[in-house]
C-alpha cells in the first residue's frame, strides 16, 4: 500500500514536471528568432500568404491563447502539423521515434554488456594492470565527443576498411516494410526476416558504438567504485571467512548490491540520449527523432519542436519512474526506506 502511495505521488510529480516543461518550452520556442510562416513559405511568398499561414497556425493570437490551443490539442493526443514536413507531428514522431529508440537501446545494451564486466574486472584486480587499462579507457571514452568518435568510426570502418554501412537503418536494396513497432530488429525477428535483421544490425554497429563509448566508460568507472566500496563491507569479510568461493562472493554478494548506481546511470542515459543522439544521427543519416528535433528547431517549426520535447520529456519521466521501481527490486533496502518515508 505504501509502495502504491509512493508510486502515485511520483506519477503526480511527474505530471507536474511535464506541465512545467510544456510551458517553458512553449514560451522559449516563441521567442527564438525567426518567423515560422515566412521560413516555411520562402522569400517569394507574398505578405498575404504569410499572414494567411500565420492565421491558420494561430500565430497571430495572444500567446496565452496559443498555449491553450496547444494544451487542448495535447489532451486529445494531437500535436498539430509540422511546417517542415507538412504532416501531422504525431506521424513524424511515430516514424522517427522507433529509429532513435532502437539506436539508444542498442547503445545502452552495449554500454551494459561492456561497461559492467569492465567495472567488475577493474574492481577485482584493483591497482593492477587490468584496472589501469579500464580506467584509461574510461577516461578516453568520457572525454571523446560522440561526434568525433562517429566521424572517426565512419572514416575507419566505412572509408578505409569499407566493412560496415555508414548511413541509414537499412540498405536501399533490402525491401522491407516496417512492422507494427517500427523497431527493425524486433519486427524482423518476429517476422523471421533474417536478412533484414542482419542488415539492421550491421547498420546499428557504428552509430551505437559512437554513442555507447562514453556511457560504457562511465558505467565501468561507477561499477568499479561501487564494487570496491561494497567489498569493504563486513559481510563480504564474513563470507570470505566462511570460505564462500571467490566467484560467488564477487557476483552474488558484491556485484548485486553494487549494481544500483550503474543501473541508475544507465536509466538516465537511456532517457537523455533520446533527445541527445542528434549529432550521431546527423553523421550517420539516421532517420531518428533527435535529428528531426534539431531540424525543426532550425526551421522554427513550433508544433514539431513542442512535440519532440514533450515526447522526450514523457520518456525521461517514465524511465526515471521505472528506474526507481527497478532499484527497489534490486536493492530491498530502498523498498524498506520507501516504506519508512
Amino acid at each position: 500500500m505504501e509502495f502504491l502511495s509512493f508510486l502515485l505521488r511520483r506519477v503526480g510529480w511527474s505530471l507536474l514536471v511535464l506541465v512545467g516543461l510544456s510551458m517553458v518550452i512553449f514560451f522559449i520556442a516563441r521567442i527564438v528568432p525567426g518567423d515560422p510562416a515566412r521560413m516555411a513559405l520562402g522569400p517569394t511568398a507574398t505578405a498575404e500568404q504569410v499572414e494567411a499561414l500565420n492565421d491558420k497556425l494561430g500565430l497571430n493570437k495572444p500567446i496565452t491563447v496559443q498555449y491553450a490551443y496547444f494544451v487542448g490539442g495535447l489532451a486529445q493526443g494531437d500535436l498539430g502539423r509540422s511546417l517542415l514536413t507538412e504532416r501531422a507531428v504525431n506521424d513524424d514522431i511515430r516514424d522517427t521515434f522507433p529509429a532513435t529508440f532502437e539506436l539508444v537501446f542498442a547503445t545502452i545494451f552495449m554500454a551494459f554488456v561492456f561497461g559492467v564486466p569492465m567495472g567488475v574486472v577493474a574492481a577485482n584486480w584493483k591497482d593492477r594492470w587490468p584496472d589501469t587499462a579500464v580506467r584509461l579507457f574510461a577516461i578516453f571514452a568520457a572525454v571523446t565527443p560522440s561526434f568525433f568518435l562517429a566521424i572517426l568510426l565512419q572514416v575507419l570502418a566505412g572509408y578505409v576498411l569499407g566493412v560496415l554501412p555508414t548511413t541509414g537503418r537499412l540498405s536501399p536494396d533490402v525491401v522491407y516494410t516496417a512492422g507494427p513497432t517500427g523497431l527493425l530488429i524486433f519486427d524482423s525477428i518476429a517476422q523471421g526476416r533474417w536478412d533484414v535483421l542482419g542488415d539492421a544490425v550491421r547498420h546499428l554497429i557504428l552509430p551505437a558504438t559512437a554513442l555507447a563509448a562514453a556511457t560504457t566508460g562511465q558505467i565501468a568507472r561507477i561499477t568499479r567504485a561501487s564494487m570496491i566500496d561494497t567489498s569493504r563491507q563486513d559481510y563480504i569479510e564474513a563470507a570470505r571467512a566462511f570460505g564462500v568461493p571467490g566467484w560467488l562472493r564477487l557476483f552474488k554478494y558484491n556485484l548485486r548490491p553494487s549494481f544500483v548506481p550503474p543501473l541508475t546511470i544507465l536509466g538516465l542515459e537511456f532517457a537523455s540520449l533520446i533527445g541527445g543522439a542528434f549529432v550521431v544521427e546527423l553523421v550517420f543519416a539516421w532517420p531518428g527523432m533527435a535529428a528531426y528535433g534539431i531540424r525543426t528547431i532550425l526551421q522554427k517549426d513550433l508544433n514539431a519542436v513542442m512535440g519532440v520535447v514533450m515526447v522526450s520529456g514523457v520518456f525521461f519521466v517514465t524511465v526515471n519512474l521505472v528506474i526507481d521501481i527497478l532499484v527497489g527490486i534490486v536493492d530491498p533496502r530502498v523498498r524498506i526506506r520507501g516504506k519508512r518515508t
Partner: protein
Amino acid sequence: MIIRPSRLFASCAVAALFACAGAASAETVVTMNTVQIFGTIDPAKISDYTDYMAAVNLYDGLLTVDSSGNLVPELAESWAVSDDAREATFTLRADAHFADGSPVEASDVVYTFERLFRINQGPANLFAGVLSAGSVEAVDARTVKFTLEKPFAPFLATIPAVFILNEDAVTANEGGDDGQTWLATNTAGAGAYTLKSWERGARMVIVRDPNYYKGFGDGPIDEVRWIVTNDEATVKSLAASGELTMTSQYQSPDTYKALEDMGRFNIAKEATATAFYLKLNTKVAPTDDVHVRRAIALATDYDTIREVILPGGELTTPLPKAFADFHNDDIPQVAYDLEAAKAELAQSKYAGQEIPIVLGYVAGTKFEEEISLLMQSNLEQIGFKVTQQPDPWNRITEIAGKVETTPAVNQVFFGPTYPSPDSMFYTQYHSNAAGTWASMEWVQDPEVDAMIDKARVTGDPAGQAAIYKELQAKLVDIQPDVFLLTQTVQHAMDKCLTGFKAVPMQSFDYDFTRYSWTCK
C-alpha cells in the same frame, strides 16, 4: 580458387550479419547526397531547391526548362498566347499519361491549379494577382486555357513551376484536406520516376517508370537514391565504398579533391544564374548615402573573393549573364580601387568622420566570415569603423523584415525561381516584395517599381530586354548591392554518369531523364 555452393552458403550463414545482406542491386543506380531534407513532395507546397529536386522527377508540368533557360514542351505539345497577352492556351500531348496509365487531360490541369489556389502555398505566389479560382478552364479534353487578370509577360516562364496532378487519384484520397495528407507521402503524377521509399530525414529512393510517355534515351538511370547528409566524412566513406555516384553541390574543396583522387570521379563545374551579393540597406546609415554604397563597391576586392575565397564568375549588374538576351553588357566591372573609394566617400554626407558600419553575414559560414573580414580590412583603410554581425539564418530571416533591424551590409545568395529576369528583379527590388531576406536593400524606388511593372506587361522580348537593360543601369547607378559573383556549381560525379547541366530554375538540373550512364 573454386568455392563450392555449399561452402559459400555456409560462409554466408556465418557472416550473414556482416556481408551477405543487401547484395541485390538495380540495373543502373545513381546515389547522390543532399544536404537538406525533402520537406514535401506535394506540388501545391513545394517551394525550395530540395523539394523541387524530387518533384521534377516525380511529376511533369505543361512546360519545362532547358539549360539555356528556354521553355520546352513537356505535357503540352504546343501553346499560344493571345495578342493582348491576357490568354494562354495549351494543347496537351495525345500520348501523355500518368503513372497509373490514365491519360493526362485538361481537367487535370484545371484541378491542379484550382487546388494550388485553394492551398495558397508553394508556387501559388507566382500567380498572385495574375490567376485565381476560375482563371483556368478546360476547352476540351486536350486544350486548357488560362485567362490572366492582367498582362504578365513572365507568365509562361512560371508555368514549369507547377506540376500536374492526376485529379482522379487525388480526389479518391482527398480526405478532409484536399488530399494534402495523402500527397505528403504518395505521388499522383506523370513523371518519369515513381516514389519507391522515403525515410524522412535520411533517404529517398525513386525508380524509373518504364512506361513513361516520353520514353528514355540511351543508358537511362533506373533508380535514384538521395541520402541526406552534409557530413563530409560520410560523403567520403560513401564514395570509397562505391555507393555514392554524385555529390551535392555543397561539399568542401577537400572532399571534391579526395573524391577526384579516388579516380572514379570527375568534377563537373557549371556557371549558374545564382548571384551572390552584398546587399546594402539603402534606408539606414551610412548606406543610405549612394556615395557610401559606391565607396563600398570600390573597396571590394573582387579578384580575391572570386578566385580565392569563393570561386565564381563575374557579376557586373544585378542580373547574371546567364540571362544573355537581357543582360546589359555595356556596364563594366567595378574595379577594386581604394583611392577611388576614398574619393567617393569624400562626397558623402558622412565625410570627415569615422563612419560606423555593420557587416552582417550567416554565422558559421566560413567563406562569408572570410569575405566579411576582408571587407573589414578594406573598409577600415578608407575611414569606416566596422562591427561584424554574424547571425544564424533564422535570425536573418527575421531581422530582414524591418528596415531598422536590417544591417547596413548583408551577404546573400539569390537565384531565379523561374527562368525570367522578372524573378531576379521583382523579388529583390520591387516595393511589393520588400521585407524578406531577398530584398534587404529596401530599394523602394518608384522609378524601379515602374520599370519592373512595365517589363511585366511588355510581351515583346526585345522591348522587355530594353527595359531590363535600362533597369540594370539604374540599379548599378544607385548601387543597392555590391555585385560579388555568380555562383559556380560543382559536383563530383562518377565518370560513367553524364548529363549534368545547370538550369536557371530551382533544381531542374536534377531531372534524371537528362542523365545517362555511359559505361556498359
